[in-house]
C-alpha cells in the first residue's frame, strides 16, 4: 500500500475524531439549560396599597386627601374598614395609572413563571450545527484526498487535473476547525459562494486545462481576478452577490473587452485585423467600451446601431478610414465615436438619447450610400457626421420647444420625428454644398418647416401629411437655395416658406371654426397637404412675388374656402385644389383676384390649367 495513503488516512481519522468530539461537545453545550426563578417574598395587601399611593398619590393620604382619615404616618390608621377602603382606592388608582402608561405591556415580565430551560442561541443564530460540522469535515477530507490523488476519479487527462485543483481549492476554503465555519444561517449560500470561487480560481490558475488557445487563456486570466476577489474567501464569510454583480459588469467586463480589443484578429478572425477598416473600427469601439463603458455615452442599442452603421461605411468605403495620411485608422474610428457622442450629449431633448443616435446612423448610412461628396473636401469627414445630425436637431428644436402648442412632439411620434429628420438628411446628402463652408442652410430649412408644423395646433394634418410636406419643402429648398427659407430676415419668420404654410393653416383654422366638415369645409387632411405643396412649389420659383403678395395668397385660400363652404352641392376638395393651382400663378403676378364669378369658376374648372 502507498505509504502516503496510510499517513493521509491516519491524519483524516484523527481530524474526524477530533471534530466528532468537538461536535458532541457543542451539542451538549448548546442544548437547553436551566434558568431558575428568583426567590420571591409574599406581596401583602398593605404592600400593594403603599406601592400605589407612594410617592405619586401620597397627598391623598394626608391633610384633606380623600383617604387621609384612613392613614396615619407610614401605615393605615386604626379605624374600622381602613384597610378595605385603602385597598379599593389603590386598585382604582393603579388601574388609572396603568391606562395612562400605554407603552407598558402587562404581560412583559410575568409571562414565564418558575424555572425554565433555555437554549444557547436564538433560532437561526449560532454556529454550524454538530451534524453540519461533521458533514463539512468529511467533505473537506474527501476533497483534500481527491486534490492529492485526482487519478482516483478515473477521469483522466485535463479533467482529472482540473478536478484535482478544484478539490484542493475548495478544501483550502473549508476551515479545519469547525468553530471557524461561521454561523449556521445561510450556510448553503456561503457554500455556493466558496464553490464558485474555488471553481473560478482553478480556471484562473490553470486556464490551459480548459482552453488551449493562448488568447482565450489570456481572456480567462484577465477577466476572472475581479470576480474571484468579490467572492467569499472562506466558508465563514458571507457571500456579497451585489459585489459579484458589480465586478461582473464593471472590472470583469472591462477586462474582457480590453483583452479582445488588444487582439481582435485572434478573437474575431482575420476580417477584424486592426490594419483593415472593419478591424480598426471594431478595435476603437471595444476600447471605448472598455474605458468608458457602453452606457456612459449611448444606450446599448444605440451604440450597437451606430457601430453597425459605421461597419457599413467601413465595408463599403474602407478608404475613408485608411486613406488619411498621418491618421491611423483606429484613431479615426475612435474620433468618429467620440465626436458623435460629444455632439449628441449636447443635443436638444429628445435627440440626446437614442433618437439622436438614430440620426447619426442615418448620416452614416448616407455616407455609405452616397459617399463623402456632400462633405467638405478638406477637413475630417468624421466631424461632419455629428455636425449634420446636429443641424437637423437644432432646426427641429424650434418646433420642439414651442411652449404654446406643445411643439411638434404632439403631432409626431418619436419614430416619426426620426422619419422627418431623415427626410431632410436624405435631401442634404443629395445636395452638394448645403453643408459646405459652415453653412447652416440645412438647419434653416428644417427650422422653417418645424416652426410651421408647430402652428398646426388643431392637428389638421396627419403625421404622414407632414412628412410629405417636409419632403417637398426640403426638395424645393434644396433646388432653389436661399429662397424659401431665410430669403428675407425682415419678414417675421425670416422665411416665406414658413409663412405660406402658416397662412394656409390659419385659413384651415377658420374653416374649422366655421364648422369644419359639418360646415362644408374641405381644407384639412389631404386637401390641405396638397395646397401647401402647391404653394411651396410655386413660392420656391417666385420667392419675391410670394413675399410681395403674401396677403393676396392667403386671400385666395380664404376666397376658395368660403366658396366651397357656401356651395357644398357644387364644389368640393377637387375643385378647391384645381382653382388654387390655377389661380395661384395669377395672384403671384397680379395680386388679389377679387370676387370670382360663377362663369369664371366654371371656365377655370373646365378649361386647361392656366
Amino acid at each position: 500500500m502507498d505509504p502516503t495513503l496510510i499517513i493521509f488516512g491516519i491524519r483524516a481519522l484523527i481530524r474526524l475524531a477530533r471534530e466528532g468530539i468537538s461536535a458532541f461537545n457543542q451539542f451538549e453545550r448548546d442544548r437547553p439549560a436551566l434558568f431558575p426563578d428568583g426567590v420571591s417574598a409574599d406581596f401583602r395587601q398593605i404592600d400593594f396599597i403603599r406601592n400605589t399611593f407612594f410617592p405619586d398619590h401620597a397627598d391623598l393620604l394626608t391633610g384633606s386627601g380623600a383617604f387621609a382619615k384612613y392613614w396615619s404616618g407610614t401605615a393605615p390608621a386604626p379605624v374600622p374598614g381602613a384597610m378595605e377602603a385603602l385597598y379599593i382606592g389603590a386598585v382604582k388608582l393603579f388601574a388609572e395609572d396603568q391606562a395612562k402608561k400605554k407603552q407598558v405591556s402587562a404581560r412583559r415580565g410575568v409571562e414565564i413563571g418558575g424555572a425554565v430551560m433555555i437554549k444557547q442561541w436564538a433560532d437561526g443564530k449560532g454556529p454550524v450545527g454538530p451534524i453540519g460540522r461533521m458533514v463539512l469535515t468529511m467533505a473537506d477530507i474527501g476533497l483534500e484526498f481527491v486534490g492529492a490523488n485526482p487519478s482516483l476519479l478515473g477521469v483522466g487527462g485535463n479533467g482529472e487535473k482540473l478536478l484535482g485543483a478544484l478539490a484542493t481549492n475548495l478544501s483550502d476554503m473549508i476551515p479545519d476547525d469547525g468553530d471557524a465555519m461561521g454561523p449556521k444561517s445561510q450556510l448553503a449560500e456561503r457554500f455556493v459562494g466558496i464553490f464558485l470561487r474555488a471553481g473560478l480560481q482553478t480556471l484562473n490558475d490553470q486556464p490551459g486545462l480548459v482552453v488551449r488557445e493562448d488568447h482565450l487563456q489570456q481572456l480567462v486570466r484577465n477577466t476572472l481576478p475581479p470576480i474571484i476577489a468579490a467572492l467569499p474567501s472562506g466558508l465563514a464569510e458571507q457571500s456579497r452577490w451585489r459585489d459579484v454583480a458589480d465586478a461582473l459588469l464593471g472590472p470583469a467586463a472591462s477586462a474582457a473587452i480590453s483583452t479582445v480589443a488588444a487582439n481582435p484578429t485572434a478573437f474575431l478572425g482575420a476580417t477584424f485585423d486592426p490594419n483593415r477598416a472593419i478591424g480598426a473600427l471594431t478595435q476603437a469601439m471595444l476600447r471605448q467600451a472598455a474605458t468608458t463603458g457602453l452606457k456612459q455615452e449611448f444606450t446599448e442599442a444605440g451604440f450597437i446601431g451606430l457601430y453597425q452603421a459605421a461597419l457599413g461605411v467601413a465595408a463599403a468605403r474602407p478608404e475613408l478610414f485608411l486613406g488619411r495620411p498621418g491618421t491611423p485608422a483606429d484613431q479615426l474610428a475612435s474620433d468618429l465615436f467620440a465626436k458623435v457622442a460629444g455632439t449628441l450629449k449636447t443635443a436638444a431633448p429628445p435627440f440626446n438619447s437614442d433618437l439622436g443616435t438614430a440620426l447619426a446612423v442615418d448620416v452614416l448610412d448616407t455616407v455609405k450610400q452616397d459617399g463623402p461628396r456632400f462633405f467638405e473636401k478638406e477637413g475630417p469627414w468624421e466631424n461632419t457626421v455629428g455636425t449634420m445630425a446636429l443641424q437637423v436637431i437644432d432646426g427641429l428644436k424650434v418646433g420642439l420647444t414651442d411652449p404654446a402648442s406643445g411643439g411638434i412632439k404632439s403631432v409626431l411620434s418619436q419614430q416619426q420625428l426620426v422619419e422627418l429628420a431623415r427626410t431632410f438628411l436624405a435631401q442634404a446628402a443629395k445636395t452638394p454644398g448645403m453643408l459646405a463652408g459652415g453653412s447652416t442652410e440645412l438647419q434653416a430649412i428644417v427650422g422653417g418647416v418645424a416652426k410651421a408644423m408647430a402652428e398646426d395646433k388643431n392637428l389638421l394634418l396627419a403625421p404622414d401629411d407632414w412628412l410629405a410636406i417636409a419632403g417637398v419643402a426640403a426638395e424645393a429648398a434644396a433646388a432653389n437655395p436661399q429662397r424659401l427659407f431665410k430669403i428675407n430676415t425682415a419678414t417675421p419668420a425670416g422665411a416665406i416658406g414658413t409663412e405660406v404654410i402658416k397662412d394656409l393653416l390659419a385659413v384651415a383654422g377658420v374653416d374649422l371654426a366655421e364648422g369644419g366638415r359639418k360646415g362644408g369645409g374641405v381644407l384639412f387632411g389631404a386637401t390641405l397637404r396638397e395646397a401647401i405643396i402647391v404653394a411651396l412649389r410655386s413660392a420656391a420659383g417666385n420667392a419675391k412675388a410670394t413675399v410681395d403678395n403674401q396677403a393676396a395668397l392667403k386671400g385666395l385660400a380664404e376666397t376658395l374656402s368660403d366658396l366651397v363652404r357656401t356651395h357644398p352641392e357644387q364644389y368640393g376638395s377637387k375643385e378647391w385644389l384645381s382653382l388654387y393651382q390655377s389661380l395661384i400663378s395669377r395672384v403671384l403676378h397680379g395680386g388679389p383676384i377679387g370676387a370670382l364669378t360663377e362663369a369664371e369658376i366654371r371656365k377655370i374648372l373646365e378649361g386647361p390649367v392656366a
Partner: protein
Amino acid sequence: MSPNLRALVLAVVLAASGCAGASLDSLDTKLRDLSKQNTPATRAQLAALAAEAQADAKASPDPKNRVAFYRVAAVAAWQAGPAGETLVLPITDEGAAACDALPAKDASAPRDCSLIRLAAPLATQDALTRKLMVIQGQVGSSGKLPSAQLEPVQQLFDGLETQFDKVSGLRGGVFALDLPEDFKARTDRERLIIYCNGVKAWSLYGDVEGAPAATFNAMAQRKKQMTDRLEADGIATDCRTIPATQSFDAT
C-alpha cells in the same frame, strides 16, 4: 492500515482530546434534578455540584467547555442557597473571566456567559429575600415590627436596590446578544422579582414601630426610580402577579 492500528489511533485521539460533553451532560442533569427537589439536603448537594463543576471548568482545555462548566457551577451555587453563598462570587468571577477570554467574548456562548454574569446578583437577591421573608414572619398581630428592625429592613431594601441596578445594567448586554427571546424575557422577569422584593422591604419598613416618615418617603422616591426604569423597558410593575413561592416547571 490494519483494523487494529485504526482502533489504536482512534483510542489515542479520543483519550488525548477528552470528551467533556459527557461530563457536562451529567452535571447538567444533576443540576436539574437537584434544583427540582429544593430541600436542605439537595441544596447541600447543589453546593457540592457547584464545586465539582468549578473544578471541571478549571481543568477543561477547551475555552467554550470551560465556560459551560462555569455556567453549571454558577447556577448550582445560586440554587444551593445558603450552602452555596460563599461559592457564588468566586465561581462567577472566574466564569466571567473565562467569557472574556473567548474569541468573541460573550457572543461566543451567549446563554452561558449571560447566566454566569446574572448569577451573582440573582443569588444575592435570593439571600436578601430569604432574610426579608424571615422578618415578614415576625410581624405581630398588631401588624408592627419592633423598632430594632429599622436598620436591618432598610439594609435589605438597600441591598435589593443594588441587585436591581446590577441586573438592569446587564440587561443591555443580554439584549444585544443572539439569545432566545425566552432568555431576554426571563431577564426582565428577574428584574421585576427583585423590584417587587424591594417594594416589600420598603413597605415592611413602614410597619416598623417608629419608622420615620422622612426616611420612608425618601425610600419611596428611590423605589419610584426603579419603577420608572422597568416601565421605560415596557414592563408593567404589578407585583401581585409574582407568586410568593418558588415554582419549578422545568421538563
